[in-house]
Every structure is written in structure tokens, then in C-alpha cells.
């Protein structure tokens, strides 16, 4: 019997950090990675990083401009703005990540079921996705908030419920494309169960584009959270949130413009960071989608 000779083992040491290297090779992605890491660290270490309590009211020192004591100044209740922004990072990232992960998980599961399941189930699920997608988000948010009351968990429910249909549609399309591929047929011939085919064979092959989409949606969700909080429909005061900081700043924009500036800055940075990270991930994971970015 003939045998196949083995290729010499490639140097593993260099390969280990290859993905990180590839990601950092692009300056936008590298910067984005640093930004996102910064936000994550800030969120995780908020109680140690913030110089003051974000909710401690000190009306005597309200609306103070930036100083050595209060780097970003104080708001209309005399709370330290820097501390509120630091804790606001925590709020923003928690809501964004939890709701995106929940929406992603629901979308993944329903998309796989719609794509691989029987046709009537597919039709039913697609109808559900389309109906949910057709609801205007703000109106839907208002309705849910009226029923459940404003708050962090309501916000997460609203965001998850409005964003999972697009994830499900993506996964469904991917699943449909793979459903009749040779290896799925081969598994069916081996009598692999539906659960096994879906979770062992389909899931790992459809999840890539979803991860990219999720990371690119995090800034959108942060914006939605800030927007709803700005409208007073988001997190409840006194919980610090970038949106409510902006709202408070907006009411006193003439006397203390620094509030809006400092409150808006992290929002812009987070949006940029997550967006570029998502694009970098997309280019790295799926080179076929690579768009030519002006050099």
C-alpha cells in the first residue's frame, strides 16, 4: 500500500499570533482595537478609575467648568462628569453587548431552524422576521416601554427584539446555501440527527459573518441606547449613561457647553472603534468581502 509522505511541521511559534498580527497590520483596525480595549478596560475597572461616585450630588459645585479637581467639570447637580462618563461606559457597553449577544443567539438559532427546517416553518419564521423588521423601532420601543416601564432590561429587550430578525435572515441565507452541500448530504447518509447536523456541522460554518455583523452593530446599539436615554426612555436616572449626560448637557448648553462636548466624545470614539474593528474583522475573516479602502 502506498502512503503519503508527511509535510515538515511549520513553525508554530510564528503562527500563534498570526491573526492578531494580521488585524494590527491595518492602521485603522489597530487603532480601533486599542480604542475598544480601552473602553472595555474602562468599563471593567470603572469603580477604580472614576475619581468620585457618579451619583453623589453636590449642588454647591454644580456646572463647574473643567478644573484640576473635576477634570471634565460637574453637571447641573454637581456630579463629577468624568466619573459619570466612566460609569456611563459601563452602562453603554453592558447594554450593547448583552442585547447584541441575546439578539445574535436568537437570530442564530431561528435562522438555522428556518434554513434547515421544513418549508412551512421557514415561511412562518420569515414572516415573523419581516413583520418585526417592518415595525418602526422608536414606536416599538415606546410601546414596550409603556408596558414594561423604562429601564435597562426594557432597553435590552427592545434592542434584542428589533435587531434579531436581521441576524436570523443572514443565518438563514447562509444555511440555505449550505443545506445541500456535499458534506451535509454525507452526514445525512451517515444518519446524523438534525440536532447534530445543525449544531456540529452547520453552526460553525454560518457563524462567521454573524460575528462580523454583531461587532459592527455594537456602535449602532450604543447610539440607540444613548438616543433613547436622551429622550428619557432609556436607563433611569441616576444611572449614568452617555445619552442622559448629553441630555443634561443640552439643557444647559449655553452655560456649560463642556458637558455636551465631553459627553459626546466617548460616543463618537466608541462608534468609530467598534465600526473599524468590525470592518477589520470582516476583512480578515472573509477576504472576499474586502472593499478597497482609499490608501
Amino acid at each position, binding site marked *: 500500500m502506498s502512503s*503519503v509522505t*508527511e509535510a515538515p511541521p511549520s513553525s508554530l511559534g510564528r503562527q500563534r499570533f498570526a491573526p492578531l498580527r494580521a488585524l494590527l497590520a491595518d492602521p485603522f483596525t489597530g487603532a480601533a482595537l486599542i480604542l475598544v480595549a480601552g473602553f472595555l478596560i474602562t468599563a471593567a475597572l470603572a469603580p477604580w478609575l472614576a475619581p468620585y461616585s457618579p451619583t453623589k450630588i453636590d449642588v454647591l459645585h454644580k456646572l463647574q467648568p473643567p478644573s484640576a479637581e473635576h477634570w471634565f467639570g460637574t453637571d447641573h447637580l454637581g456630579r463629577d462628569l468624568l466619573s459619570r462618563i466612566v460609569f456611563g461606559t459601563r452602562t453603554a457597553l453592558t447594554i450593547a453587548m448583552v442585547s447584541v449577544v441575546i439578539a445574535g443567539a436568537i437570530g442564530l438559532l431561528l435562522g438555522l431552524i428556518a434554513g434547515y427546517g421544513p418549508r412551512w416553518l421557514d415561511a412562518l419564521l420569515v414572516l415573523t422576521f419581516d413583520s418585526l423588521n417592518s415595525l418602526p423601532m422608536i414606536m416599538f420601543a415606546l410601546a414596550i416601554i409603556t408596558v414594561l416601564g423604562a429601564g435597562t432590561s426594557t432597553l435590552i429587550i427592545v434592542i434584542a427584539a428589533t435587531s434579531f430578525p436581521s441576524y436570523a435572515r443572514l443565518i438563514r441565507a447562509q444555511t440555505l446555501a449550505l443545506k445541500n452541500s456535499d458534506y451535509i448530504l454525507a452526514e445525512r*447518509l451517515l444518519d446524523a440527527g438534525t440536532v447534530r447536523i445543525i449544531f456540529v456541522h452547520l453552526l460553525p*460554518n454560518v457563524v462567521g459573518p454573524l460575528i462580523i455583523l454583531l461587532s459592527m452593530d455594537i456602535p449602532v446599539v450604543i447610539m440607540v441606547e444613548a438616543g433613547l436615554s436622551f429622550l428619557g426612555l432609556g436607563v433611569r436616572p441616576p444611572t449614568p449613561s452617555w445619552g442622559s449626560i448629553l441630555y443634561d448637557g443640552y439643557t444647559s448648553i449655553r452655560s456649560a457647553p463642556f458637558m455636551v462636548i465631553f459627553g459626546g466624545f466617548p460616543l463618537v470614539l466608541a462608534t468609530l472603534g467598534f465600526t473599524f474593528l468590525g470592518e477589520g474583522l470582516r476583512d480578515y475573516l472573509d477576504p472576499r468581502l474586502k472593499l478597497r479602502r482609499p490608501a
Partner: protein
Amino acid sequence: MTPLLEIEELAVTFARGGLINRLLNPLPLPSFNILDGVTLSVMPGETIGLVGESGSGKTTLARTILGLVRAAAGQIVFEGRDVVTQADFRAMRRKSSMMFQDPVASLSPRLRIGTLLTEPQIIQGRPMPDRRAAAKALLAQVGLPASFVDRFPHELSGGQARRVGVARALAMKPNLLLADEPTAGLDVSVQGDVLNLVGELQREQGFAAMIVTHNLAMIRHVSDRLAIMYLGRLVETGPTQEVFAAPKHPYTATLIRSEPVPDPRQRSYHLAVSGEIPSVFRRPSGCEFHTRCPLVQPRCRLEPPAYRRAGANRMVRCHYPLETCDQEKEDFARASENKGN
């Protein structure tokens, strides 16, 4: 000896149009026979070559046998038992394996070779104390190094992936192996390796093999019997050597003659099949091959020929089967002259 697999008058039809079309149209929509009246039996341990052009229904036949495509009519009997329900097909699949045309694409891309090799046993609930060792044993059986257990399918060459496919197909010790173009996309030396490997394992384990191919040079050396398909129907079956020596159906003859012969003096006549295989959506009247047959007669255009016995172990679907090798030569020579050259 009872046949391992018997197929009787198997037909597969695809209907055009979906549910809405069917509701709007009072008349039954036309359906199209992808396979029609396929009758074939496979003896235990024998190798049967299923030959035909692209679009002749070879792959569909293989898939229908294992229940991936639903048959519209006909009968499948496996090991003396009728295969009708899904449970029957499941039981049959446990004793048979299929190798797909593309060796890399038929391996789940995110799983390692070791996992893929042992998956059949895991699925069928066979106890396996040491998965890794079992995978290595299977790799050794097909002549691949043990270190391949940790590789991914895309890290293998076509020939290596094919060997993995062989190991996976034969891990369950099947009685029947269906191989769809086992040599497609491999270079000639690797084709030889793979076929020798399958042949050796077949001698060891005694399974029957049905090899779907259009590679005549290859099938001539590995099969005991040939079944020639044209447009979803069998046009000729018989022992390989006899079919090659004296084809009965003009289609078989043209197929065999269109294979290049590495000897210039042998090419006294040659008449390749011209044109494309017709679409199953517009089946020619009468004998399906009449549009391309070099020996076509008026009767062929009107009357479909029956699939009938032509010699001891031969079957043919032709009004005017070729009788002898000499006659075939004469007829073809005349036909090529008539074509006007």
C-alpha cells in the same frame, strides 16, 4: 446467490412549478422523468460501473438508491428486503456508504480529520474507548500518516482527502459502496493509488461497489460489470470485458470509440457522439438516442425500444443492436462516409 441490491423500474420525476402554480392550474403540470425504468441488480462483492455523460442521471440514481432523492415509482430491494419507508432506508444506509464527487467538499470544513473519521461510529452508537487511536488506525488503513488526525479538510490535497473519504466510507464495514466519480479531479497516478486502495479493501472486506463515472479507461480496469446510462435510462448492461469487446448499443460503441487509443494504427475509424445530451425537459420521441445516433433508422424516431435481453448476461435498449464487432465496424464506417466527410 441472491443479489445484494435490486432496483426494479425505478423512476424519479421532478414536477415543474410550486404550490401556487398547482393551485392556479387545474390541469396537472407536466412532470419530467429524471430517471425512468431503471432496472439493475448488484451481486455481493461485485464492482459495477455506472457510465454515462454528464446529465445522464448517474448521480441521481446513486442518490435515489440511498434515499436522498425520492423515487416516484419502482422498487428497491436491499439484501432481499423491500426498501420503502424512511426506516428501511435508514437501515440500508447503515450497511452502505457513499463517496461524493468532491472529496474536500464532502468533509465538514470545521472539523478535524480525526473527528470526521470516527463520527460515523459515534453517530451509530458504537462504543469507542479511544477515538484518537481509532482514527489513527483508520488513517493507517488508507496509507495516511497518523499526524493527519489534527488536520482540517482544507489542509489536505485532493488525493489525501479522497483517502480520508475512503476511510470514512469504509469505517462502518458496509456491504455496498456507492462511489460518485471517485477519480474526478485527481491526477492519473493518484487515481491509480485511490483505485488500488479501494480494490485492496474490497478484497479484504468483500463489499460490493457501484462506481459512477464517465472515465471509461478507468472503469474498464476496475469493474466487473458495466451499466451505460443515457438520459435517465439504462441503455446497456453487461460484463465489462464483453461490453468493451462488442458493444451492443450504438451509444456504448460511440462512447468506447471516442476514448483516445494510444496507437495511431488502431484508429481505423472513429465517430464521436456529436452534439449535447438532450434535455430531460424535452425528451426526443421514440428512442432517446436517435438525435445523435449514427445508425439511426426511421423506426427509431417513432417507437421507443424495449430494454431486452441480448445474449447471456447482456441487456440492451435498441431496435437494432450491433451484433458483432465486425458489423459494428462496417456500420460505423458506412455512417461516417454518409456523413459526407
